[in-house]
């Protein structure tokens, strides 16, 4: 049940975004990826979830290779992501947003839909109930009928989370879940992440807020300049000299 | 062999005007990101203005050409300022629909003003073709080729060497920086659209006397322009030039050796094949204008 990344390399023209990136995401853990801007964190996400083709390396989940698969195929294998900038279906209601996220849970095929089989109606009401449960979980049940784009920023990010959860992930990749949020909102998100892990979902997140990262992570992976520079428990990473240097720069030499 | 050369020469003449159409559209579609389905209508407009100038006002051929270019540029400037500027933040689909509306309105306007019967543009050149070795070419076509080449060269010079051209390149490469440096973004957009439309009108005025002028001639012109732009790569002036010449030559060769009924299919097939296999265009490796 491990998500394994081996020797991942990504190059854009002359620029190396990722090089020799290797790490494992242990099942049932909350793993955070940290690093200064441009370190390659979102690039790694994009490759893992199929939005980008790597120049080299392999990604496997439960031993099955993921490299080269389209994002929808990777989602079908249980690996779902959120996006760095708010990504919802703006003109749909919150409920419809989550219903769309429940796409993989539906089974209605083209011919069945045309025939209007009765079992589809039952499936639809089942999905509506599932959507209600998910909205309840993230605390947005009261926003069910509202247009997603009308919601305040923090709630839109919760809609994003709900959509991703609807796709029934076994590994959930969260791209900066705390970005732009108030302290209180971050606490809510952290709590949700813990509850998600309790349900058996492996969580991999990219995040800049160190307090949030150190507060919920089991493992922290530090990237800089497209390479892994450290991997371990939060406390160890916090004290790791390479990590400190990456964020603060090298100490000044004698004048 | 003589036949091949003849087709090549005819193809170059046609291709030169296709290049003009393509350069105009590559600026508008490639740089401004406007899906200008009305591009062919400026081509038609140029032809009709030339017709009116020559048949009704009896002016000199060069003057007629200049009037056509001016008309195209003026109407293009008007379109940009009244229709495109207010929509500038909108999605590309919105401007596409607007330009489709302009397309329909212009074509039917032309139909109403000039009627559906094809018109022939009188020209001052002798009809007897010049014979240069194995190839015969009408003086009119030589004129068209020379003028097309001159306009293409003028366009290159404008974009590469003039202040306006530099401002255009700057605007479409990095708009905010250009604005900070004092470039009037609105004026540049209008100027670019006017320039592209003027080139289309020039193509129409040049080809008008060679063939006939009728209101729906712009439809094919639009599509061939898009074909050239896709072939050469968006925003790529040399690409559009080469693409235009290539399209003209392939069309002539196809019409000569395969079937003349399907000659217009060449442009369509190019669009489909290029978008299918090499969406960035054949010449994409060359430096883009912006």
């Amino acid at each position: 049940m491990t998500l394994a990344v081996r020797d991942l390399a990504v190059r854009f023209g002359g620029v190396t975004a990722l090089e020799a990136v290797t790490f494992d995401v242990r099942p049932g853990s909350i793993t955070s990826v940290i690093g200064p801007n441009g370190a390659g964190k979102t690039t790694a996400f994009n490759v893992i979830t199929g939005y980008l083709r790597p120049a080299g390396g392999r990604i496997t989940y439960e031993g099955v290779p993921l490299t080269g698969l389209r994002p929808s195929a990777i989602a079908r294998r249980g690996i779902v992501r959120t996006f760095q900038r708010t990504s919802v279906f703006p003109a749909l209601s919150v409920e419809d947003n989550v219903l769309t996220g429940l796409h993989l849970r539906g089974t209605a095929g083209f011919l069945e839909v045309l025939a209007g089989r009765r079992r589809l109606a039952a499936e639809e009401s089942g999905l509506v109930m599932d959507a209600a449960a998910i909205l309840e979980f993230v605390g947005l049940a009261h926003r069910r009928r509202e247009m997603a784009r009308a919601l305040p920023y923090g709630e839109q990010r919760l809609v994003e989370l709900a959509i991703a959860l609807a796709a029934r992930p076994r590994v959930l990749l969260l791209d900066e879940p705390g970005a732009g949020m108030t302290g209180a909102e971050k606490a809510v998100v952290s709590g949700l992440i813990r509850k998600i892990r309790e349900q058996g979902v492996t969580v991999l997140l990219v995040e800049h807020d160190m307090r949030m990262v150190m507060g919920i992570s089991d493992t922290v992976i530090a990237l800089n300049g497209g390479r892994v520079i450290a991997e371990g428990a939060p406390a160890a990473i916090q004290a790791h000299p390479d990590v400190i240097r990456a964020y603060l720069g090298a100490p000044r030499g004698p004048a | 062999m003589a036949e091949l050369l003849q087709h090549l020469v005819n193809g170059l003449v046609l291709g030169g005007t296709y290049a003009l159409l393509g350069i105009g559209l590559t600026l508008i579609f490639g740089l401004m990101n406007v899906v200008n389905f009305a591009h062919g209508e400026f081509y038609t407009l140029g032809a009709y203005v030339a017709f009116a100038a020559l048949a009704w006002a009896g002016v000199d051929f060069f003057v007629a050409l200049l009037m056509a270019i001016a008309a195209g540029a003026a109407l293009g400037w008007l379109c940009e300022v009244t229709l495109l500027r207010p929509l500038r933040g909108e999605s590309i689909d919105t401007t596409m629909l607007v330009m489709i509306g302009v397309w329909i309105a212009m074509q039917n306007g032309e139909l109403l003003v000039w009627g559906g019967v094809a018109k022939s543009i009188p020209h001052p050149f002798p009809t007897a073709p010049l014979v240069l070795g194995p190839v015969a070419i009408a003086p009119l076509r030589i004129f068209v080729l020379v003028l097309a080449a001159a306009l293409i060269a003028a366009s290159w010079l404008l974009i590469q060497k003039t202040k306006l051209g530099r401002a255009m390149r700057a605007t479409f490469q990095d708009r905010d920086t250009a604005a900070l440096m004092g470039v009037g973004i609105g004026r540049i957009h209008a100027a670019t659209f006017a320039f592209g439309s003027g080139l289309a009108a020039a193509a129409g005025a040049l080809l008008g006397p060679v063939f006939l002028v009728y209101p729906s001639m712009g439809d094919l012109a639009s599509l061939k322009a898009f074909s050239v732009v896709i072939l050469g790569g968006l925003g790529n002036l040399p690409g559009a030039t080469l693409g235009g010449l290539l399209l003209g030559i392939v069309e002539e060769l196809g019409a000569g050796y395969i079937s003349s009924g399907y000659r217009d299919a060449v442009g369509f097939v190019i669009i489909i094949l290029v978008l299918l296999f090499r969406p960035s265009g054949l010449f994409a490796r060359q430096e883009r204008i912006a």
Partner: protein
Amino acid sequence: MTRAGGWLLAAAALTLPLWLSSAYHLHVAIMAGIFGVLALSLNLLLGFTGQLSLGHAAFFGIGAYTSALLTLKGAWSFWAALAAAVALAGAAGWLVGRLSLKLRGAYFVLVTISFAGVISLVSVNWIELTNGPLGLPGVPAPELFGWSLRSKTAYYYLVLAAIALSYLVCARLVKSRIGRAFVALRENEPLAESVGVDVTHYLVLAAVVSAGMAGLGGSLYAHYTRFVSPEVFLFTYTVTMVVMVVAGGKGTLAGPLVGAVLFTVLPEALRAAASWQWQMLAYGVLLVLLVFFLPRGIVPAVQALRGRDAS
């Protein structure tokens, strides 16, 4: 629309021939119906997946020619020919869908136009098959259990049935998981992919259904006018369809039908006052005005006025 309103409309539609005064009016109703089917088909692509097809006349024309040729030269029955027309047009839609897999927006439009252009040239040049510009006259009228459906009243009911079928297909698709996938593609494609929506599959599906439905319209047209020529590929038809969908309200179910009725009845009513060139000119201006002032179309605007969210 309320339940009672719906029943009233259905009753009116079913009894229309009874209270229309002349054959000419019935003719207008039939044409409105055929365009209704076409508008519904275009709306599936434009309104729901968000991709504009400006080559829809190609599918319309393929349907018309297939149906005409099979009944004229192959002595097929109308119903079999109709099915074949839908199938062949659908297959053409599949081809265009697969060709345009990675293409969106303007590039998709260009491929559809190019495809229509090629098909149009084939219909003009492949004279052995299509009789070229002279067209195919004498397309037989449909027969049902030995009764000819030649009369306008009979044909009206045929077209009405076709509209009901098309509307049902659209409604069922749109309100299902498939419809949600379509809309997801339109609203946010990367997000749709991240939750497992197979973009290729749904885009091609939309193209096939949309094209097949247009083929249905083509067959109906062929057996009504009893004459098919390359003029079916005229851009005018595509433009009319686009204006109907955009003005009526893309992305709604009723919008295309409202647009179809409006833009069939209006031109006929104005025919005495203005030639079709003026009307087409007006269409162009109207399209521009719609984009500026009524971007979502008539039906959503009316719904907004009545204080409800448009679906």
